[in-house]
């Protein structure tokens, strides 16, 4: 490995302690000796086991659940139902005062995806639990199901989630999507030599950790519950379990830290609440671990995403305008998809300075397995689309794909569509080094380009921006969907006041600043040049509902803090 110290030499501190040097993992001796303790390596006597009866339908009303035969299976100690839940619906982000409680831990009279838990059997052995599961009879009334994000937005689509009340999530109480409005894409399209359109679709992806998710709950003599768990967010799962069971957080003691493969799939806190509830109701230690089949079928995958991109390009390779509609398939419940959608909007239009940008990023509900976090969710799918589109643009104008990227890359001082000035850009240099190593020929112009030269000036200003576009909700009460938002020319000013995202999210996740959109619109209306927004000191973040000060959005979900 070689560190290219000649690049940005005056900014560098090359006294690097770790980078470029092999370092031994601190936990690896336990791994190679078999002494690392995963949650299921805790040997607890007298364990009860949980298995869930799961929906065999994608979408159905439940007429009746008959557990009489199951109750008679020897070893069955308790059957948990929705009526036993202290909190009837929950979402793991509402502890941060974001989102809507939209998911019951056990079916509430309706199932919204195949594999949804309906009742939980608590038994002396897995064999008894499995036998009881097979004896529970569920009487379903099947409902039409929807599996495609654009189908789900049509007015006649079946309503997936009544807690949400429509098949898309509404941001900041008002916005039907996460939006970016920067400059005037429609005007720029008219000036472009070439319009390049792309449609990109990715499938859900399962994390498939070797260790399936689960936990062991041990009731203590002091009224507390010790929870051995493989969660990736120990405090996050503790607070969510407490919130869902309406317990004080000091009643729970979570022990974790060793995760047998996570990749984002072990933050949803799906197993802990039911296991603690079972321990509370039986007074016994309880183990709830997904089978491999459950891990593959019902644990949250990375959601499916569909991205439409329209670019207006000049023949010499300048991207004048980029319009994006991004659909995130949340499946039947929000989990973390609402946040993934914010991340996608914060990531568009990619690492390129484009003077006119228009983005709508929707979180859409369907009757698929609820999706959630996985390795850069929101960003990864967007990048796949953006970089595929860059190659398509290069082909359309007959330009080298790396030259196109260097030509359009952010440079220091450029205004991003999110009203942030670019600092510390290095994409051009990364491409130059990669091209050199790959022996990819670059023109003299591309080889001499620099992230520090050519940015700023006119590129550092917010362009005149037409007012924010119509919202789905402006189309009349009771309307649940629409044909497609892909190209929607009917833009008109909205009379509604915009609700800016809470400051904690704005600073941590770099969310789209709705207020800045309005500022741009106002400046445009005044006919004045946009100006760099004064950086404002963000107000104090709101206290999380749980009172756990240590909880930070970014530390749970891996977005980087500066």
């Amino acid at each position, binding site marked *: 490995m070689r560190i290219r110290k000649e690049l940005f030499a005056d900014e560098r501190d090359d006294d690097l302690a770790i980078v470029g040097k092999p370092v031994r993992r601190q936990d690896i001796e336990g*791994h190679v000796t078999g002494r690392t303790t995963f949650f299921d390596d805790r040997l607890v006597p007298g364990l009860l086991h949980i298995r869930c009866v799961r929906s065999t339908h994608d979408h159905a009303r439940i007429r009746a659940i008959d557990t009489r035969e199951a109750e008679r299976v020897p070893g069955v100690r308790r059957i948990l139902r929705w009526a036993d839940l202290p909190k009837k619906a929950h979402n793991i982000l509402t502890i941060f005062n974001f989102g809507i409680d939209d998911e019951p831990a056990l079916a509430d009279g309706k199932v919204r995806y195949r594999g949804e838990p309906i009742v939980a059997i608590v038994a002396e052995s897995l064999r008894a639990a499995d036998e009881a599961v097979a004896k529970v009879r569920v009487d379903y009334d099947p409902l039409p199901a929807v599996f495609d994000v654009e189908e789900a937005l049509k007015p006649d689509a079946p309503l997936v989630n009544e807690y949400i009340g429509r098949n898309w999530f509404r941001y900041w109480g008002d916005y039907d999507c996460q939006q970016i409005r920067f400059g005037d894409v429609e005007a720029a399209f008219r000036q472009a030599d070439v319009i390049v359109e792309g449609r990109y679709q990715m499938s859900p992806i399962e994390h498939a950790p070797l260790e399936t998710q689960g936990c062991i709950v041990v009731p203590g003599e002091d009224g507390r519950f010790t929870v051995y768990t493989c969660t990736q967010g120990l405090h996050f799962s503790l607070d969510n379990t407490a919130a869902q069971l309406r317990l004080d957080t000091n009643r729970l003691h979570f022990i974790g830290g060793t995760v047998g*493969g996570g990749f984002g799939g072990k933050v949803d806190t799906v197993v802990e609440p039911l296991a603690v509830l079972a321990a509370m109701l039986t007074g016994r230690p309880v183990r709830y671990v997904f*089978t491999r089949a459950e891990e593959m079928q019902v644990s949250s995958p990375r959601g499916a995403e569909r991205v439409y991109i329209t670019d207006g390009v000049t023949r010499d390779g300048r991207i004048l305008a980029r319009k994006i509609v991004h659909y995130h398939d949340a499946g039947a419940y929000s989990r973390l998809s609402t946040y993934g959608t914010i991340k996608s909007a914060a990531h568009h239009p990619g690492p390129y300075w484009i003077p006119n940008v228009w983005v709508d990023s929707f979180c859409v509900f369907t009757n698929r397995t609820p999706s959630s976090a996985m390795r850069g969710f929101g960003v990864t799918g967007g990048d796949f689309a953006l970089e595929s589109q860059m190659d398509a643009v290069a082909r359309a104008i007959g330009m080298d794909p790396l030259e196109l990227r260097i030509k359009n890359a952010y440079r220091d001082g450029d205004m991003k569509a999110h009203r942030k000035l670019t600092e510390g850009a290095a994409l051009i240099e990364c491409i130059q080094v990669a091209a050199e190593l790959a022996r990819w020929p670059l023109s003299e112009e591309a080889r001499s380009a620099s992230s520090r030269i050519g940015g700023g000036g006119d590129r550092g200003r917010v362009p005149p921006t037409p007012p924010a576009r119509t919202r789905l909700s402006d189309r009349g009460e009771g309307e649940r969907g629409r044909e497609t938002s892909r190209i929607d020319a009917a833009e008109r000013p909205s009379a509604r006041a915009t609700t800016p995202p809470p400051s904690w999210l704005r600073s941590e996740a770099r969310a789209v600043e709705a207020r800045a959109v309005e500022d741009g619109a106002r400046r445009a209306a005044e006919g004045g040049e946009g100006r760099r927004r004064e950086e404002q000191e963000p107000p104090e973040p709101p206290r999380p509902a749980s009172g756990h000060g240590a909880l930070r959005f970014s530390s749970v979900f891996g977005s980087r803090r500066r």
Partner: protein
Amino acid sequence: MVTAVSFTLNGTAVAAVAEPAETLLSVLRHRLGDTSPKAGCLQGTCGACTVLLDGEPVLSCLLLADAAEGRRVETVRGLADGPTLHPLQEAFMDRFAAQCGFCTPGMIMAAKALLDRNPNPTREEVIEAISGNVCRCTGYLPIIEAILEAARRLAARR
């Protein structure tokens, strides 16, 4: 109704009760407290439960405990010689051949079975030997490198 089963575990004679149809994995983990073999799939596809039975790698999640009666069982817990790690363990540490660590015990035991019968394997033979073991994190390259490195260290020792 339970039955007794006895075998040698990492050189020590052990006995345990087992329920009918209880697997060797369950007896090792829950009756004898050796939790080093892991339950990844419980259907014989991931290899995390791999142990050696008379020197041969077996999937302990599919093998009934009865099958081990009177035989020699080895797990990764028995691999080190006191405080001295086995060259496979050392090489896995040096080559960054573990990330989450869940597949590691099974992976190392599959590798040990290979090196015991073939001390100088080719790269292809290493790949074949661990083809029944799934790793989701580190990727297989550092694991293959570690096994080849362990073979070299064992050869140098002889």
